[in-house]
């Protein structure tokens, strides 16, 4: 019983780690978490329709290079 619980929590931790790594890789290139965006919009702005993932992706791509200094030496 305890072994199974532990196994489950290891898998849970691994899944969490995987998500962190994916999120980190995406944010490194300027793409924030899409699910968080959708959740935020639904929760705080129920009157708005959240962008689709494709729209969101393009919006963030434009924003990353749309003026501010994004890169260092």
């Amino acid at each position, binding site marked *: 019983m305890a072994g199974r619980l532990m196994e489950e929590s290891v898998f849970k931790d691994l899944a969490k780690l995987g998500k*962190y790594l*994916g*999120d*980190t*890789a*995406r*944010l*490194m*290139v*300027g*793409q*924030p*978490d899409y699910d*968080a*965006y*959708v*959740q*935020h*919009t639904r929760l*705080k702005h129920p009157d708005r329709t959240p962008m689709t*993932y*494709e729209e*969101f*992706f*393009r*919006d*963030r*791509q*434009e*924003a*990353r*290079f*749309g*003026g*501010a*200094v*994004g*890169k*260092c*030496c």
Partner: protein
Amino acid sequence: MKKVLPHLGWAAFGIIGAICLAFVALSRGETINALWVVTAAVGIYIAAYRFYGLFIAHKVLAVDPTRMTPAVKHNDGLDYVPTNRHVLFGHHFAAIAGAGPLVGPVLAAQMGYLPGLLWIVAGVVLAGAVQDFMVLFVSSRRDGRSLGDLIKSELGPVPGMIALFGTFLIMVIILAVLAMIVVKALAESPWGTFTVAATIPIAIFMGIYMRYIRPGRIGEISIVGFILLIGSILLGGKVAADPYWAAMFTFTGVELTWLLIGYGFIAASLPVWLLLAPRDYLSTFLKIGTIIGLAIGIVFVAPEMHMPHMTQFVDGTGPVWSGNLFPFLFITIACGAVSGFHALISSGTTPKLLDNEKHAAFIGYGGMLMESFVAVMALVAASVIDPGVYFAMNSPAALIGKDAVEVAAKISQWGFVITPDVLLQTASDVGEHTIISRAGGAPTLAVGMAHILHQVIGGKAMMAFWYHFAILFEALFILTAVDAGTRAGRFMLQDLLGAFVPAFKRTDRLVPNMIGTGLCVAAWGYILYQGVVDPLGGINTLWPLFGVANQMLAAVALILCTVVLFKMKRERYAWVTILPTVWLLACTLTAGWQKIFDASPKVAFLANAARFSAAAERGEVLAPATSMAQMQQVIFNQYLDAALCGLFMIVVLSVLVYGARACWIARASSKPTSHESAYEALPEGSVSA
């Protein structure tokens, strides 16, 4: 007792670091293992973070975990997103890490590894990480506003404008220097040129895929892109071996300069999704992957460092760059110890993603420690190769000649015994025609990395692959920086010019955009060109100019932080920023002064201009000029460089005056006067671990 024990654990890291550093400093053997250097640095970083970083957080700034951050306040899921601190750490580190921390330490290795190591470690702990962290804090308390805005609101509109102007000039110098590193690495190298050129169609393919075929699928296409990159490195070897194709991809430095200028203009005008964004994905992932790979490689191989701990060139007579240890070492190693440019990142995207103030130290201070570690690895890579090879690669042809026999004789005379065979063999190992006078840092780093990585994967046969992998890795993110930087420079320029001609502010219009892009490319292109034709290798001229500019921006950012501390009525802790500010001002102003007015033409622009003028009067033509008109051009360039250097000094001095004034006024006031956004408590439940 409960309170003391954990401290002892942290202190142990510092003690281990200090012991290793002492061993490195006192070791007088022929070689020393690189692990000593790496352990020394890491031990000191950990202790410094725990004790100094958190001291700044808790005592100096008094971060408030209950205070709402801009990410929470303005959360829109897009620009402002409360982000897990580990995820944000990765984002921040990827944004600050670039070519700077890789190239500076390689160039600094001409004085031996010890002076560079000491400055990298001391500089980051006391200056660089302090700056990154504090600017992040200051910006986060002001809705994530940019450095220029922060200076404007805390010091006044005039210093704000001056700082903006200074930032634009620094941008131009950085782009020129970065582009020059690529030119120096690719000149007369068909293998390198082919692989780097191949990244353009690869990126465009990725861009189209992500736009139309499977929109937004970054992961899968980045893997495909990576495989294609590796393929292009392998194919590059075949290209270089084939006489017909090799000739197609062999360019001189001047030809590459023109290609890069044309590339810069076109790339900065294309839509971002087509070329810039996909290459940014490739270069970012490759950069992070390579940094991790190199760290594993160093630990796994535990290479011996052959560079002496200190060379005779600490006296300022070095062939790679001229000038004494003070001040020039401290501006040559720019980004790895302290980099003003990071202030732009710390007041850019990062503060808009910070979920809680208490994580600012981990991200700002910790991120910069990581960058410093990259600099230490670059120093290691430059020091594991034969010192004779190092000096052959980094000395200009004007000093050592062009033929392997001549070069080996000259460098052996300096005390770094090397045979012509070793020079030829090294070149053939890495698949190049020659390794002589390949200044700029990138080729040396690539040889060092190949030296380490081939011992992990592939053996001797893979050395050429790893060399070109390293060149590609650097060129890829430098080209991304050139492209993104030209765009950013254009926005800055339009912003600046817009203050006088409002039509320029229209960043959605084609004509102002074209003019903005053109002016920006012309500015860095001109400086790049004069650097490439410089007989002393260009690095000697441009790298110090870049270093002075970058460290001066750091001084400006630290002056801002000092002013903010005074305005918060926390001036009793202001020594935390005043100390590094004074040091940076001492280094940069001395270096700037010497670059302009020193008597030696090797160091100073004006003395060199005078040397050319005197020769012109006698009717002599000095290299690199081949005609009187070119002589005049060289003289003009020297004056231009001197003027730029002078301008930087004026920028930093005027910000200093305004900063001192602001501190004075704040001190007289009885209550805090900083322009923070009003305190709002974090909503219940979001005060997380």
